[in-house]
């Protein structure tokens, strides 16, 4: 309903005001006259009239608002609009997603605005999830809404020519929200299920409205990763790595859904980074344990992924797969090359990966140095404890020798 009012009124704040006006009117009218046939339609059209009213009242002070009131009144016949049913409602949500994820907004603002306006999260919740002060986040949202209004960012689903680019921006926002939920960048817990849950909900909405291969791929990726949630931490909140996870704890139903989506995405033959990452997650999901995992296939998929997304992060993940296929020395060579180039030097996973390869190769002091570096770079408590444990194991009984 908010999405529809935003489209009709062309302004977030005006729409929010209109919605609360409409609810207030309903409390007044419904007990007296009974429920209308279509409550949502009644609320939307009441909200719209209330907004026009408000504009007219303010128009006494500002002539421009009178024109706007007339424009809104003339622009959309509410009768036709409110009878458009469920499809119309969903279309409005899709328009809203594209507006909130518009590339003309700053990346931080896109995430905050999407969670606020599309998912309906409170500003405080979003601030907590992203470890930001609520006033900072509120400010970010206000600024973004101001830009939408002043630069006139439209409420529309982009046309075919623009779609790939714009969909990419939307998927990226969903992906970032999921990632923050899947591996929190700070705080006491490894995961934030509320955020991954929101991201998955957004992903479902997207494929319902726009079943593009990459949208399918992203949802598959999220479902397959999220299916492992229960196995990723021990009962006392410690990290359990993939090779040590109790795979009976994996959510089989979610995996089945994810596998089906990967197949659909790959059959469409226009795969991109999300479908490929989903395919990689699918190979893991199908394996009974780490040893029987099809590492050559995973390394091969990373090769393809690296071709379309030649980023150091992909290269790092590829190194892990290559190490499983060809041994830790092969992985160490790749990570060393990345770090020597000056890439990922502040990324704790790069140093943990290096440390792990060194550990497996028996290069004790190199492993300790790399774990120490990783330790200095992570802000998350379980991650800290995990690295400390590894360090303690390495120092072991001959700690005095170090």
């Amino acid at each position, binding site marked *: 309903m908010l999405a529809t009012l935003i489209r009709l009124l062309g302004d977030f704040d005006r729409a929010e005001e209109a919605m609360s006006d409409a609810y207030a009117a309903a409390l007044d009218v419904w007990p007296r006259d009974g429920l209308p046939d279509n409550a949502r339609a009644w609320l939307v059209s009441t909200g719209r009239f209330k907004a026009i009213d408000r504009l007219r009242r303010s128009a006494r002070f500002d002539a*421009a608002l009178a024109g706007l009131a007339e424009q809104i009144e003339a622009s959309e016949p509410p009768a036709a609009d409110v009878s458009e049913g469920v499809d119309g409602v969903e279309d409005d949500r899709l328009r809203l997603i594209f507006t909130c994820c*518009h590339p*003309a907004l700053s990346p931080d603002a896109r995430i905050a605005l999407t969670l606020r306006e599309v998912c309906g999260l409170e500003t405080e919740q979003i601030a907590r999830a992203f470890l930001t002060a609520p006033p900072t986040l509120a400010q970010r949202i206000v600024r973004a809404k101001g830009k939408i209004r*002043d*630069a*006139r*960012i*439209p409420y*529309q689903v*982009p046309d075919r020519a623009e779609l790939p680019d714009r969909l990419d921006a939307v998927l990226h926002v969903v992906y970032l929200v999921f990632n923050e939920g899947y591996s929190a960048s700070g705080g006491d817990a490894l995961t934030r299920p509320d955020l991954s849950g929101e991201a998955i909900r957004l992903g479902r909405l997207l494929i319902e409205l726009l079943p593009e291969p990459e949208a399918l791929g992203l949802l598959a990726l999220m479902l397959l990763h999220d299916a492992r949630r229960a196995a990723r931490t021990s009962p006392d909140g410690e990290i359990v790595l993939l090779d040590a996870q109790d795979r009976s704890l994996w959510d089989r139903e979610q995996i089945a859904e994810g596998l089906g989506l990967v197949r659909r995405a790959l059959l469409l033959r226009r795969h991109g980074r999300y479908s490929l990452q989903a395919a990689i997650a699918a190979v893991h999901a199908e394996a009974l344990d780490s040893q029987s995992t099809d590492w050559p296939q995973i390394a091969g998929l990373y090769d393809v992924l690296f071709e379309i997304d030649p980023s150091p992060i992909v290269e790092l993940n590829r190194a892990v797969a290559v190490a499983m296929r060809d041994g830790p020395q092969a992985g160490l060579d790749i990570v060393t090359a990345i770090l020597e180039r000056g890439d990922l030097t502040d990324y704790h996973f790069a140093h943990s990966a290096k440390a792990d390869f060194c550990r497996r190769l028996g290069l004790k002091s190199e492993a300790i140095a790399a774990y120490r570096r990783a330790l200095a770079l992570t802000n998350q408590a379980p991650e800290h404890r995990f690295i400390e444990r590894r360090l303690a194991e390495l120092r072991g009984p001959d700690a005095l020798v170090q």
Partner: protein
Amino acid sequence: MQYLCLIYTDESADARMTREEGQAVMGEYFAFTEGIKKSGHYVGGNPLQPTKTASTVRVRQGKMSTTDGPFAETKEQLGGYYLIEAKDLNDAIQVASKIPAARSGSVEVRPIMKM
């Protein structure tokens, strides 16, 4: 709604262009301008003389000072502009993306404030 498209290019690279290259770029601009006149987007536009012709003026405590050159030294310089009429930002971005300099330099799109 009106938007100003500010065109930024690397002046030194523009200066190194051969006569033929320069003419080819001019041709592209003529074609682009024709196109947005036909589509109804065009309101106005001009190329600017290079920054070596620029002066920056300030008045402080009633005293005027004039300095040589643009306000800030940057890698790309303001080289021209189009004032366009567009339905919304998406429409304006579409137009801006077809300005020839978008491929080598950059185009800043700014909504005009209504007074």
